[in-house]
């Protein structure tokens, strides 16, 4: 019997939502780690019962949690994220050099084939790897020591490495995104990196098409077409079909091309979803209407999906890690809001309903398809 498990990270704990393949009736479990910020949880593709969670607090710092039984029980794993060698500096908001300082883990990306291997993207931006189930962590320092790194500047949310995408046909090829440095690609499992931002333009920089410095919010890939990536940049929705060698804009008829999330339908690599947000000064949806936009043409031509979503007096935001898809047929689409709602569409976006409405502000949504 197929089913789904939705892992939800919030400002005040983690929740696990489960349903059968119908995705109509839900069981809500939590809060786990009540009172702590849960930036991200993610299950291992190789062992769905193995789940990692990033737990943090302004008071108590970073904790890494691991479950071996699908979130029924948890144990604290290793939380020592030490930068390798000289830490150096990046630029601060006022353009002065600022020492690299570890603050938190934004994103966890388990290996595709080894439950004990997991990558972590952290703030201040760096790329870590564990090969022992998150017990110990090693920085792959080629990213942080990239020649451009001393010129990286934080976005408003900090200098965070928030997105990690592994090419399923070549796990040595990894893409990451940093706010506000941009996309980097590795061909050697994270040892070395090069910027992959050609085609991006950002008017927040004096050189609008600079090699680095772009505030990339999220990138997404369909596993069957790993040379194609979709991007929600601070402003602009983008696409590449050559492994991020070049990008082109596909914002098309979106009401605004600012936003955070972007994802691809599991059953169609040309069906893409975004949730437009009014602007970088108005972190809520336009016109009081919560609308997911879907393109069935790989971008440029977008349709608003509203059936079951609030269409008046709605002023929520949807953060970069707070959308995911399941791989059932039809594919389910999920997202969580700053207002604490988690919505599901079991039919690829045609209709929506709230699984829960009153959680703490949602930071991340990850879906495990259980077959």
């Amino acid at each position, binding site marked *: 019997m197929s089913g789904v498990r939705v892992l939800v990270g919030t400002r005040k704990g983690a929740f696990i939502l489960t349903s059968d393949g119908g995705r109509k009736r839900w069981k809500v479990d939590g809060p786990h780690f009540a009172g702590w910020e849960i930036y991200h949880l993610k299950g291992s593709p190789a062992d769905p019962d193995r789940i990692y969670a990033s737990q943090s607090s302004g008071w108590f710092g970073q904790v890494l949690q691991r479950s071996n039984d699908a979130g029924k029980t948890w144990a604290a794993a290793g939380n*020592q994220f030490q930068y390798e060698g000289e830490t150096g500096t990046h630029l601060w908001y006022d353009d002065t050099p600022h020492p690299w300082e570890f603050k938190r883990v934004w994103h966890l990306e388990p290996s595709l084939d080894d439950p004990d291997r997991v990558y972590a993207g952290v703030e201040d931006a760096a790329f870590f790897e564990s090969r022992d189930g998150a017990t110990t962590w090693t920085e792959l320092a080629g990213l942080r020591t990239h020649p451009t790194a001393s010129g990286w500047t934080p976005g408003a949310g900090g200098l965070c490495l928030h997105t990690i995408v592994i090419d399923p046909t070549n796990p040595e090829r990894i893409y990451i995104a940093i706010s506000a440095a941009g996309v980097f690609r590795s061909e050697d499992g994270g040892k070395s990196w090069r910027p992959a931002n050609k085609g991006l333009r950002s008017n927040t920089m004096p050189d609008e098409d600079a090699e680095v410095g772009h505030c990339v919010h999220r990138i997404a890939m369909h596993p069957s077409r790993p040379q194609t990536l979709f991007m929600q940049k601070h402003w602009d929705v983008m696409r590449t079909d050559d492994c991020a060698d070049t990008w082109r804009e596909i914002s098309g008829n979106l009401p605004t091309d600012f936003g955070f999330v972007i994802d691809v339908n599991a059953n169609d690599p040309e069906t893409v979803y975004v949730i437009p947000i009014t602007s970088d000064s108005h972190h809520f949806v336009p016109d009081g209407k919560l609308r997911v936009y879907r393109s069935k043409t790989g971008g440029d031509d977008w349709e608003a999906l509203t059936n079951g979503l609030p269409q008046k007096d709605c002023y929520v935001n949807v953060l970069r890690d707070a959308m995911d898809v399941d791989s059932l047929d039809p594919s389910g689409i999920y997202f969580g809001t700053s207002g604490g709602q988690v919505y599901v569409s079991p039919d690829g976006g045609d209709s929506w309903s709230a699984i829960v409405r009153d959680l703490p502000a949602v930071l991340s949504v990850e879906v495990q398809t259980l077959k």
Partner: protein
Amino acid sequence: MIQVVLPRNLQILAGVGRVVEVQVQGPATQRSVLDALEADHPALLGTVRDAVTKKRRPMIRFFACEEDLSNEPLDAPLPAPVAEGKEPLLIIGAIAGG
């Protein structure tokens, strides 16, 4: 045994009650008490003080015997009632909100 009072979030993290007891080697100081606490409860590593520098996390305070010991040297002796187990060392999270 020295008594240490933990904030609620750390009680949950370590799976313990409000008060934990630790045995220290040598003089009772902030360092020796925290060393013993982390040895007994590894889940607390890095949550009260930085795991490498041993510096107190900025929003954590140490109180005992109605005194704020937060800025005392790490190796300064704790008050005698704490060392004798008559008074607890309180680990406090700075007040939240406004």
